[in-house]
C-alpha cells in the first residue's frame, strides 16, 4: 500500500500536467466544431441532391461521420497519441526508476515480496492513467455541453474514449516489457516518444497505403473509429488481440521481475 501511495505521489505532478495538456488540446479542437457542423449540414443537403447510386460508391455512412461523434473520433486520433506517450512513459519509468535512482536495494530490504512490489506499481500505473482518462472525458463532455453540440450517442462516444484507455494500457504494458529487458534504461521520455510516434505514423501509413496487415503492428489501429461509429462496438479480433498483448506483457514482466538480479550500490 505504501509503495502504491508513493508512486502516486511521485507521478502526481506529471499526471496533472498531462491531463491539463490533453484537455487543452481537446478544447482547441472542439472550438472548431461549430464551423464543422455548419459545413457538415451543407454537405448533407448537397449530397441529398446527388443520385443514390453515386453515394453508394463512397461506401460510408456520412450521417454518422459528420455527427459530433465523428468529429470527436477525428480529434481522438491526436488525443490517443498523447495518451500513448503518457502510458508508455509511465510503464517504463515506474519500473526503471528504482534502478537508475539507485533505490532498488533500499526497496528490496523491506518486508514485501517482489510480486507485491510489482502489483502495487502496476496498480499505480492503472490508477494514474485511469484518472487522466476520466478527467479529460469529463472535460470534453463539459465543453460539448458548453458549445451546444446537441444530441449525440453517448454510448458510441464512451466507446471511442474507452478505446483510448485500452490503447494507453497496451503501451504501458509494452513499457513494462521494455523495462524488463532493459532495466537500467535512461532517457525514458525519448524512447517512449520515438516509439509511439513511429507507431502513430505506421497507423497513418497503413490507412493511406491501404495495407491491412500493418494494422496488427500498431495499437493505434486496433480500434477503428469508423467501425465503432457504424456498429457501436469494438472489432472482436482486435479486442482479443489487445487483451492478449496486455496479459502477455504483464506476465512477462512478472516473470522477469521476480528473478532479476538487483544491482546494489
Amino acid at each position, binding site marked *: 500500500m505504501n509503495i502504491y501511495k508513493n508512486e502516486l505521489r511521485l507521478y502526481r505532478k506529471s499526471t496533472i500536467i498531462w491531463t491539463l*495538456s490533453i484537455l487543452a*488540446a481537446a478544447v*482547441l*479542437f472542439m472550438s*472548431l466544431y461549430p*464551423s*464543422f457542423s455548419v*459545413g*457538415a449540414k*451543407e*454537405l448533407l443537403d*448537397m449530397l441529398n441532391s446527388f443520385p443514390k447510386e*453515386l453515394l453508394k460508391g463512397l461506401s*460510408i455512412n456520412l450521417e454518422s*461521420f*459528420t455527427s459530433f461523434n*465523428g*468529429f470527436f473520433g*477525428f480529434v481522438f486520433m*491526436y488525443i490517443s*497519441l*498523447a495518451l500513448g*506517450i503518457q502510458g508508455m*512513459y509511465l510503464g517504463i519509468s515506474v519500473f526503471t526508476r528504482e534502478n537508475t535512482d539507485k533505490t532498488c536495494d533500499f526497496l528490496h530490504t523491506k518486508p514485501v515480496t517482489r510480486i507485491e512490489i510489482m502489483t502495487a506499481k502496476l496498480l499505480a500505473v492503472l490508477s494514474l492513467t485511469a484518472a487522466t482518462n476520466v478527467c479529460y472525458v469529463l472535460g470534453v463532455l463539459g465543453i460539448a455541453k458548453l458549445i451546444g453540440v446537441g444530441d449525440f450517442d453517448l454510448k458510441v462516444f464512451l466507446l471511442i474514449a474507452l478505446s483510448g484507455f485500452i490503447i494507453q494500457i497496451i503501451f504501458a504494458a509494452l513499457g513494462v516489457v521494455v523495462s524488463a529487458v532493459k532495466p537500467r534504461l*535512461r*532517457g525514458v*521520455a*525519448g524512447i517512449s*516518444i*520515438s516509439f509511439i*510516434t*513511429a507507431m502513430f*505514423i505506421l497507423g*497513418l*501509413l497503413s*490507412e*493511406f*497505403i*491501404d*495495407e491491412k496487415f500493418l494494422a496488427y503492428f500498431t495499437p493505434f489501429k486496433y480500434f477503428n473509429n469508423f467501425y465503432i461509429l457504424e456498429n457501436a462496438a469494438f472489432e472482436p479480433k482486435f479486442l482479443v488481440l489487445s487483451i492478449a498483448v496486455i496479459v502477455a506483457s504483464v506476465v512477462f514482466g512478472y516473470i522477469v521481475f521476480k528473478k532479476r538480479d538487483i544491482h546494489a550500490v
Partner: protein
Amino acid sequence: MNIYIKEMKGQIKTLIFWTIGIFAMIFGGMSKYGAMYSGSGGDSINQLMESIPKTIRIVLGFIDLDLSTVEGFYGVLFGYVILMAAVHGAMLGANIISKEENLKTVEFLMAKPVSRADIIRAKILAGVTGIFIFNLVTLGTSIFSVNFYGGDSSADRFVMNVTLGLFISQAIFFFIGTAVASNIKRPKISTAATMGIVMFMYLISIVLELSDKLNFLRFITPFKYFVIIRFIENKGFDLSFLMVSFLIIAILKIVTFKAYEKRDLYI
C-alpha cells in the same frame, strides 16, 4: 574536434535506425503508388471532393493532394517524414546538451581545457551534421523511390526543394531542443519538455488544416513553414517564411550559447 568526433560516434546508432525507418516508409509507401493510383485519373471524383468543405474532407480522412500524380502521392508521405524529422531533430538537440549532466560526465568535460562556447560549438556542429546526413538519406531515398515508381525523373527538382524545406524545418526543431536544454534547470526533463513543444506545434498544424481563419498562427509552427502545395504548383519557397526560419535559428542559437555559458550545472 575530439568532442565533435565523440558526438558523431554517439549518435551514429540512432541515426542508422532513423534512416532505416525513413527508407522503409518512403520506399514502402511509394511502392503503393504504382499499384494503386497511377494513371487512374478520376476527374469526376476529384470534382466531387472539391465541393466538400475543407474541414469535413480532413475529418473524414480525404486528402487534399492529387494522388494520381507522383508529386501528390509523395506529398502525403512527406507529411509523415516531417513528423519523424521533427522528433529526431528535437530529441537530438535536447539530448546533445543535456546528456553530459544526465550521465554525470559534465564535470569531466568541464575540467578539460576547452571553453563552454567551444563545447557547444562542437556539439551543435555534430548535431547539424547528423541532421544533414538524415536529410541526405531522405533525399536519396526519395529521388530513388519517386523515379523508380514514377517512371521518369521529372519530379527531381520538386523532391530537392521539399527536402531543402525539410532540412530547414528540422534545423529549427534541433535548435529548439538545444535552447530548451541549456535553459531548463533540471536536465532530466529537457527531452520531455522539448517534445511537449514539438507535439504542441504538431497539433497546431493539424488545427490549421481544419480552419482557414487561423492562418496567422502559421508562424508558430515550423511544420507549416514550407507547404507542399506550393512546391507542387512550382511556386518555390515562400520568402517570408524562409526569412522567419533563418531568424528563428539565429535567435535560438544565440540563446543556447548565452544560456549555456552562464548555466549552473546540475550535478
